[in-house]
Every structure is written in structure tokens, then in C-alpha cells.
């Protein structure tokens, strides 16, 4: 119990005194996950729409694989990205390993299937609604995708938030490809793992509380920006 209390008070003081190191790793956490989220959405959402409107031979297989990949183990993703980006790997020449870019890549791999899968489910339902009308209007494939993405934007927000949640709390992959280097690739989750390992539970807990607070704040922000759950909106 004492750990919990001292963790809470430490978290309070870290936030109140605007601790420079805390601010740095919190911002890096946000930077990595938000970048991965934006890039991931840009890939996952059109992909989800395409899977909803297009009938091709391996469609069902692709969807099943995508659903299965939702539970992709981050540690394995980290390992694979590590191998690909390491000096001897195919992308070694870019020297990306142990940089925030590598962390962004790893997180994208983790959240794209999740976002695409959730987005696909809501887009598929919407497409069932719209199918007859849009076919009757002779719309092109591209127009279908645009219409679906726009009209399902609130459901897509949920998918994005799920992706953000998975990204910001993830530690296995970014620990491997980022290396938890102080002032370079240390983020909230890797710092928590480190402090726990060192036995400084109070600091670890403080960082944890900051992480949860950050997650809630970002979610509220996005909800507020998207005006979800307001009357007469979707």
C-alpha cells in the first residue's frame, strides 16, 4: 500500500512541477503513437473500405487473416522489425534501428490490422445499407470508398481510438526496436518497465498514472473534436 500512496504523491508532484524528463518521455510517447496512428489510419481505413466494397477471390481469407492479426504479439513484431532494420537486415542501410522511426514502424504493424478489422466491420454494415442505392447511382469504386469512409467517420473514430489505446500502452515491440535509450527512445511504457526492474516502484507507478491520464486526455480530446455522442449525429 505504501508504494501505491507514494506513487500517487510522486505522480502528483511530477505533474505539478512539470518535470522536464517526464515531459520529454511523455511527449515522445505521444509523438510515436500518434504518428503511428495517423499513418496507420491512412493505410488501414482505405484498406477496410476496399475490403467492404470489392469482391475478389481471396477476400474472405484476407479478412480472416486481418482478424487474426489483431492479436499479433508485440514482442514478435518487435523481433521481426528488429531483424529487418538491423545492420545486416534488408533495411539496415537506413540506420533506423533504435530511433523513434523504428518504433513508429513497429507500432504501425501492430495497430494496422486492429484498425482495419474494426473499421471493416462497421463499413461492411454501412455498405449493406448503401449497396443498392450506390449501385443504382453507378458510382465508381473510388466514390464508393469515399462515401463509406465519410459517412462512417464516427465509427472509424472508434477504430482509431482502439488503435491508439493499443499503441500507447504497448511495450514489447518498442522496447526491442527502440532500445529504451535515455533522451532518444525512452517512452512512458519502457520507462515503467525499467523503473520496475530497478525496484523503484513509486516512480514506475507515477509514470503509470501519468500514462493513464494521458490516454484519457487524448481520448476525451478526440471525442470532443469528433463531437460524438451528441444528439442527432452519427
Amino acid at each position, binding site marked *: 500500500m505504501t508504494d501505491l500512496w507514494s506513487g500517487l504523491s510522486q505522480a502528483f508532484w511530477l505533474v505539478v512541477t512539470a518535470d522536464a524528463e517526464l515531459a520529454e518521455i511523455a511527449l515522445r510517447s505521444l509523438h510515436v503513437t500518434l504518428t503511428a496512428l495517423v499513418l496507420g489510419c491512412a493505410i488501414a481505413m482505405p484498406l477496410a473500405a476496399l475490403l467492404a466494397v470489392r469482391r475478389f477471390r481471396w477476400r474472405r481469407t484476407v479478412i480472416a487473416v486481418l482478424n487474426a492479426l489483431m492479436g499479433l504479439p508485440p514482442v514478435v513484431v518487435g523481433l521481426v522489425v528488429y531483424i529487418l532494420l538491423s545492420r545486416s537486415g534488408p533495411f539496415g542501410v537506413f540506420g533506423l534501428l533504435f530511433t523513434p522511426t523504428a518504433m513508429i514502424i513497429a507500432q504501425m504493424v501492430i495497430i494496422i490490422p486492429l484498425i482495419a478489422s474494426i473499421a471493416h466491420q462497421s463499413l461492411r454494415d*454501412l455498405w449493406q*445499407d*448503401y449497396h*443498392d*442505392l450506390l*449501385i*443504382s*447511382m*453507378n*458510382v465508381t469504386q473510388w*466514390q464508393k470508398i469515399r*462515401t463509406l469512409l465519410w*459517412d*462512417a467517420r464516427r465509427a472509424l473514430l472508434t477504430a482509431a481510438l482502439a488503435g491508439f489505446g493499443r499503441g500507447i500502452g504497448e511495450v514489447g515491440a518498442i522496447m526491442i526496436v527502440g532500445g529504451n535509450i535515455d533522451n532518444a527512445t525512452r517512452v512512458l511504457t519502457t520507462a515503467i518497465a525499467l523503473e520496475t526492474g530497478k525496484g523503484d516502484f513509486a516512480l514506475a507507478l507515477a509514470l503509470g498514472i501519468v500514462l493513464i491520464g494521458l490516454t484519457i486526455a487524448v481520448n476525451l480530446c478526440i471525442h470532443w473534436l469528433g463531437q460524438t455522442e451528441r444528439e*442527432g*449525429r*452519427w
Partner: protein
Amino acid sequence: MSSLFPLTVEGAETRRRGKTLVGPVSMTLTGAGATVVVGPNGAGKTTLLRLLHGAARLNAGSIRWAVPTEQAQEAQAFVFQRPVMLRRSVVENLIYPLRLRGTPRKAAAAEAEAWAARVGLSDMLHRPATVLSGGEQQKLAIARALIIKPQVVFLDEPCASLDGRATAEIESILQDTKAAGTHLILSTHDMGQARRLADEVVFMLHGRVHETSAAAAFFDAPETAPARAFLNGDIVT
């Protein structure tokens, strides 16, 4: 644009999982006024409309408009029995088909407002379309179909499950449309509505067209026995 008519249908058939839903159907529509498709439930009225519109698969036979098919499809619109509302505001629903055709946004918005006024939806322009009542949704769907100035409008039981007032409003919109020279192809099982709107009647039973005749002739003296029974109000099976 040159006229789409006559529409020539020869031995058209559509099947699903080996079962013939409609066909073979052969008929010629000359495109005067309104063609009303009547028949009992399950006779294939909806499928015939979809087939003519090109939304159902043509498994055999041919459907030929007087112009190339692609051009013909550009000049058609379809109104469904259960209106499909885009999850947008009323005005955005009306703008949508115009924007698809590349109309600039401002012109499209002006046109949309004019059409909303014509169907009596002016004071709900910015309301989400999905919260409108059934009658309002159907009026919106019809306005959205007509806004592209099609030559042919297909209407699949546009007034099913609507009350008398909504039906009257929709019929008056349809009469205006007809007067403006747009051809209506409409299915209904409301015989009163068929009498009020039809210039030409297509009677369907069991997926086949049993009779195609001018409205007056059909209602006075139907040629076939099932049509006579149907008009008498007998249950045709």
C-alpha cells in the same frame, strides 16, 4: 439527349441459385407517361424493375434501350421500397448525386434547396435524413432521384406502408414529374394508385409478364383470366 425509348425486352431472365426469379419476359415499352407494374406479392415486380434498371443480373435474353446501355443508365434513377438514406443531412442527400456528376458545390446546393422546397422539406434541410419520418424519407428519396433530371425513374412500391396524406403528396409529385415528360416505371399493389397514375399496365404473376396493355383497356377488360381475377380482388395464386 435522345430518347431512351422504345425499350425492347426479349426473353429476359434472371436467376438466383438455379431458381428463375423473373422471366422469360418479352415486352416493348414505348415510354408514354407512366408504366405501372401490378401483381400479387412475390410475383417478381421488384426484380423486374431491378432487371430493367440493370441492378439485377441478366442471365438470358436482352434488354435494349434506344441508346447505348451506359448512356441509358446515366439517365435513370431508382427509388426503393424502403428508402435508403445516406447518413447525412437532407440537403447533403440531395447534393450527393449532383456532386457525383461533377456539379460545382454551390450550384448543387442551390438545386438541392429548390428540390427540397418542391417536395416540402424546406424547413428540415439540415436535419439528419435518418431521423425523418417514413413519408418524409420517401419524398427525399424521390427528390434525390429526380434531381439528376433522369428520363426514366423506377419506383418500387413508393407508397407501401405510408398513410393517405403522404401517399397523396407523393402522387402529386409523381404527377408533376410525369407532366414534365419523365417516364415513370412504378410497381404497386395499390389498385387505386395504379388507376390514378398508370398510362400503361404490366400485369405480373409467378415471375412472368401476363399482360401489357394501355391502362384504360386493362382496367375495363383485362385480357387474361388471372388479371381479371386479380382486379376482382380474388386471391391469385
